[in-house]
């Protein structure tokens, strides 16, 4: 298993470079992952999306689709793409410490 040093700790990663264990995630790690993804600062809207994604994942075992993010996270599609310019669903999942989303939508 590959590892990375995040927020001063050695963290296990999966084959896609996402965190291997949900429980390793902290807000500090999220901030470092965001910087790696080119997002200098996580705003309140970023956190809204990240928290929503973690909640759905914990309850249902997969990250929400872009449609659900748009409908239920409290952030609309246009904002979502501004917040995570290089692909909102995947980028947000990575920062939220979740595996790559399984769905196509």
């Amino acid at each position, binding site marked *: 298993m590959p590892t990375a040093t995040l927020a001063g700790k050695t963290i296990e990663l999966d084959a896609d470079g996402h965190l291997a264990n949900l429980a390793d995630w902290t807000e500090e790690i999220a901030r470092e992952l965001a910087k790696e993804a080119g997002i200098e600062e996580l705003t309140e809207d970023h956190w809204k999306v990240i928290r929503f994604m973690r909640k759905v994942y914990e309850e249902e075992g997969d990250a929400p*689709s*872009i*449609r*659900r993010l*748009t409908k239920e996270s409290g952030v*609309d*599609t*246009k904002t979502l*793409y501004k917040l995570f*310019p*290089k*692909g*909102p*669903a*995947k*980028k947000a999942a990575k920062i939220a410490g979740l595996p790559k989303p399984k*769905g*196509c*939508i």
Partner: protein
Amino acid sequence: MANETEYKPIEKVSIIVSRGSLEGVYPGLIMANGARMEGIEAQLFFTFFGLEAIIDKRMDHLKVATVGNPAMHMPTIIGMLPGMSALATRMMKKEMEKLDIPPVREFITLIHDSGCEIYACKATVDMFHLKKEDFCPEVDGILTVGEFYEKSAGAQIIFT
């Protein structure tokens, strides 16, 4: 799977939708949305019967074709019975909803909001005597085939 060649990731796609049945329209929409989700630049170009998906009055009423499609595993004579297409459409919509695939109108809005440009083909618009007002508000313009190629500079073109 080791490969000596390093391929450049796809940066831009230009997707043509040429069919007007429900199953003819969705692949292009799913690919356009999927491209934007991956951070790939995307544009959609609707031509011939594909225009049905962006004509305001028609886009909510697209149907699955039950005749002339061997993959439906339905004899043509059954497929042509009244109500068969409506039934197949209802079933497909139900399955799509389970996968969180939105209805056409909502999908077009989602895709457009994600930054994908949406165009109608000039030749078809003229042939069917359509006007800009006949289309849903997400349509960014009506393009000639030449303009389509210009806009597709640097893109992979996908015909569906």
